[in-house]
């Protein structure tokens, strides 16, 4: 009888070895490449062959194809194949762990003479859009000016803010209608002296510009082909592949772009003739199809679907699948924010009590156990420069279910036993599950926890309101580029506190603020990584405005005829550019 009995346990292993692996994982810091590094073609993938078509099983259809609207992972992945920007990440090893930032459309990763205030880029020769028109500095100007138009509201805003020298959305005042009503950015901000040259002028030093420009959101847009809102469904592409057809919610076909010249591109390859993308493939479905490995699925892959929770442990433990399976970290770190604007939270002993009491097991549990989540020590993810695997300020790696006794003592010392603690949680099944268990853990330490649900799709907007009512709430933050400069400053710069800003905990610590300013001017990315790590430790031991919970992991699988399968730490998933058919 199969119904009555279930065998018990989900086979989810506990990876005790994880720490050791991470210790070995010395995140090599990324350097900014010069002209030689930026010259195409990209170094060949060992064993790669040309031809064939690949089936791509994806869950979510692409809502945006206009580069300026791209900020979610799936779209950023496909953008690697169809869009090009001024810079990009070049893999310098074949395992997806080592990268450098090089010039993509530009001849190098950018030159600055004044510590990051002025950046100069020169376009390569022979670069063209898929419609055959050459890419000029006019297109680049259009690319950046249209970011200020009202209809662009989904993409990253770093460079806009840097250009306008503001925070928040104040940058739109710089060019309220974008380039569409005849106005342009003045040369003092963005100058294009000739067809090949682009110069960015910032008020403050921004040594991270080469990283920022590598984001898919800053890929080039054709000035001639700019159809404003409609560009989102039918963009003019520039990468090695172009869109042959796109049926939203159903399918997309990518074919080779003959106007793409490999000699201009140090990053991408064009091995596969054709990608047939099918949407609405849930994780279980894609995993099952790829596991079965028959028919067209032998050349099948999913760029963004993970192995579903149900198959995960089996997939990870089957030695026969080793060559078809890749795992890695996503750039996200989960963290419990302590709302520093609340008077009750001013007492560090209360914050310590929260930090010690909080069980992180519920979070790990809710998302599938230790195969999918790893108990976190610090705020910097293993994919970001500056990660220290040994750092564990609250002993969460030893006592993931929390230390209620210690927390209780701290709370008692603060005279705040049974204080009310409002816990805003995201209203998803997982959120409901882990928040109730976390609340139970905090209750044991002597908190009167009040859980408040927040609708999933507006969760971040609610918790980023300055006058929100939550004492604690759980968020996750992913680095936009592999530097802690996209983690610590947006999250903990006290001067960034504003409605809608990412400083969710509303922490405003003078030391943190001044350190951010100091480290931000360091132009050597290797040196700055070490400084960020120090700041991370300061935050978690002296300020205690956050409790890190978990690092997000994922595992992906491909068919047996898929070659060049690599988990790329920067992309945070399979690298689509290196794929070929065996």
């Amino acid at each position, binding site marked *: 009888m199969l119904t009555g009995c279930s065998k018990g346990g989900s086979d989810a292993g506990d990876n005790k070895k994880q720490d050791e692996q991470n210790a070995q994982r010395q995140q090599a810091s990324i350097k900014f490449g010069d002209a030689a590094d930026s010259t195409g073609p990209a170094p060949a993938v060992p064993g790669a062959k040309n031809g064939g078509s690949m089936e791509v099983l994806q869950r979510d259809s692409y809502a945006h194809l206009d580069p300026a609207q791209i900020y979610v992972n799936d779209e950023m992945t496909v953008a690697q194949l169809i869009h090009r920007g001024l810079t990009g990440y070049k893999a310098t090893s074949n395992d997806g762990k080592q990268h450098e930032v090089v010039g993509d459309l530009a001849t190098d990763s950018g030159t600055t003479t004044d510590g990051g205030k002025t950046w100069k880029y020169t376009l390569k020769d022979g670069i063209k859009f898929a419609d055959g028109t050459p890419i000029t500095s006019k297109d680049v100007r259009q690319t950046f000016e249209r970011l200020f138009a009202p209809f662009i509201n989904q993409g990253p805003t770093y460079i806009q803010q840097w250009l306008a020298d503001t925070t928040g959305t104040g940058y739109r005042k710089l060019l309220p209608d974008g380039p569409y009503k005849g106005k342009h950015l003045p040369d003092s901000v963005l100058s294009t002296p000739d067809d090949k040259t682009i110069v960015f002028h910032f008020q403050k030093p921004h040594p991270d510009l080469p990283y920022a420009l590598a984001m898919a959101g800053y890929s080039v847009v054709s000035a001639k082909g700019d159809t404003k809102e409609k560009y989102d469904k039918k963009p003019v592409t520039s990468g090695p592949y172009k869109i042959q057809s796109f049926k*939203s919610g159903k399918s997309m076909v990518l074919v080779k772009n003959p106007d793409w010249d490999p000699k201009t591109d140090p990053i991408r390859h064009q091995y596969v003739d054709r990608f047939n993308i099918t949407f609405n493939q849930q994780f*279980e479905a894609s995993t099952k199809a790829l596991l079965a490995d028959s028919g067209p699925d032998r050349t099948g892959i999913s760029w963004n679907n993970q192995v579903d929770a149900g198959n995960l442990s089996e997939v990870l433990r089957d030695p026969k699948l080793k060559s078809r399976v890749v795992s890695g970290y996503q750039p996200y770190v989960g963290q419990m924010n302590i709302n520093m604007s609340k008077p009750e939270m001013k007492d560090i002993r209360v914050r310590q009590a929260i930090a010690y009491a909080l069980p992180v097991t519920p979070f790990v549990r809710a998302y599938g156990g230790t195969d999918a989540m790893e108990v976190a020590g610090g705020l910097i993810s293993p994919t970001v420069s500056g990660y220290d695997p040994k750092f564990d300020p609250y002993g969460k790696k030893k006592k993931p279910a929390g230390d209620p006794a210690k927390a209780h003592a701290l709370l008692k010392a603060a005279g705040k036993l049974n204080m009310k603690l409002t816990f805003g949680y995201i209203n998803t099944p997982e959120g409901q599950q882990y928040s109730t268990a976390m609340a139970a853990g905090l209750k044991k330490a002597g908190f009167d926890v009040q859980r408040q649900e927040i609708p999933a799709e507006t969760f971040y907007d609610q918790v980023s309101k300055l006058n929100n009512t939550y004492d604690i709430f759980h968020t996750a933050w992913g680095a936009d580029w592999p530097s802690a400069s996209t983690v610590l400053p947006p999250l903990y710069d006290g001067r960034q506190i504003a409605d809608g800003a990412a400083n969710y905990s509303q922490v405003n610590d003078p030391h943190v603020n001044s350190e951010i300013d100091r480290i931000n001017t360091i132009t050597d990315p290797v040196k700055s990584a070490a400084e960020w790590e120090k700041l991370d430790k300061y935050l978690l031991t002296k300020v205690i405005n956050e409790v890190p919970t978990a690092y997000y992991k994922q595992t992906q699988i491909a068919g047996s005829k898929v070659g060049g399968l690599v988990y790329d730490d920067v992309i945070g998933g399979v690298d689509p550019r290196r794929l070929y058919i065996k």
Partner: protein
Amino acid sequence: MLRFLVRRIIGAVVILFLLSIVTFVLFFGVPRDPALLMCGKTCNPDSIANIHHVLGLDKPITEQYWIFLHNLVAGSDQFAQGPCPAPCFGYSYHTNDLVWSTLMDRLPTTVSLTLGAAVCFLVVGLGTGLLAAWRRGTLVDKTATAGAMVISSLQIYFIGPLALAILVYQTHWFDKPAYNEFTGDPLSWFTGLIIPWVVLSTIFAAQYTRMARSAMIEQLQEEHVRTARAKGMSRSYVFFRYAWRGSLIPIVTIFGIDLGSLLGGAIITEYTFGLPGLGQLAVQSVFFSDLPLLLGVMLFAATMILVFNIVVDATYAFIDPRVRLS
């Protein structure tokens, strides 16, 4: 007949009109702002205000409703995403797709699910019900009646996950249900929907068994059935002509109601099996506060109910000569 149709259609339109107002008002009671949804990762009050303006949410509710009605009837070119021919429900806040084409996209899933299940439960349910009535009082009847009683008390949210757990997750005998287009691959269309069909139709079949049995038994006690027997017509002739004809009225009534509400979205079934039909779309539109989509689904579902009400009433005229439509 024509006058009947015209009158009923006018009635239906009035109801739809009121329903759209209720939905509109209801939506404005939602404690969520659709602008937040479109605002992305870098959201702030300015961009929200901007999105409000683009969506027309800064206009008074009455004006917004008027625009909605106007677009519905006449279509609109005012949308940033592109033209929107009548019936125009606008573009989804969430996916930016045309609501009407999204509905039409999802419809085949729901229609496949509903009609497939309807065939199953009509054949099995009515068959069993007739058999039980024919052999009333025997062991067959008692078994069928007791079985139908228990099965009709089952819930999709129990046997659906149970079927998934046993057939898909434990034994791996079946793939997880999915919708594949019939025109693309009829076989995978069939295999993908077989579990939902069986689960959905099991419960309905039991209900139809009960209904058909009791309707037939009631009819068999009618005097005109006795008259037919008294004039020498065989038991089967009387059963299938006289009694069956009379039983059709309650059966058709319930079937019309069931079909209408299922075609508007078999919410729990689609949710359980992850089928991308109208029901799932409805749930999504609620969770994403997607007003255009919500209005679209709501009015579509109500239209289905109303259309099938009219169809049922019109069918009466064919079944029962006493009914004259006017």
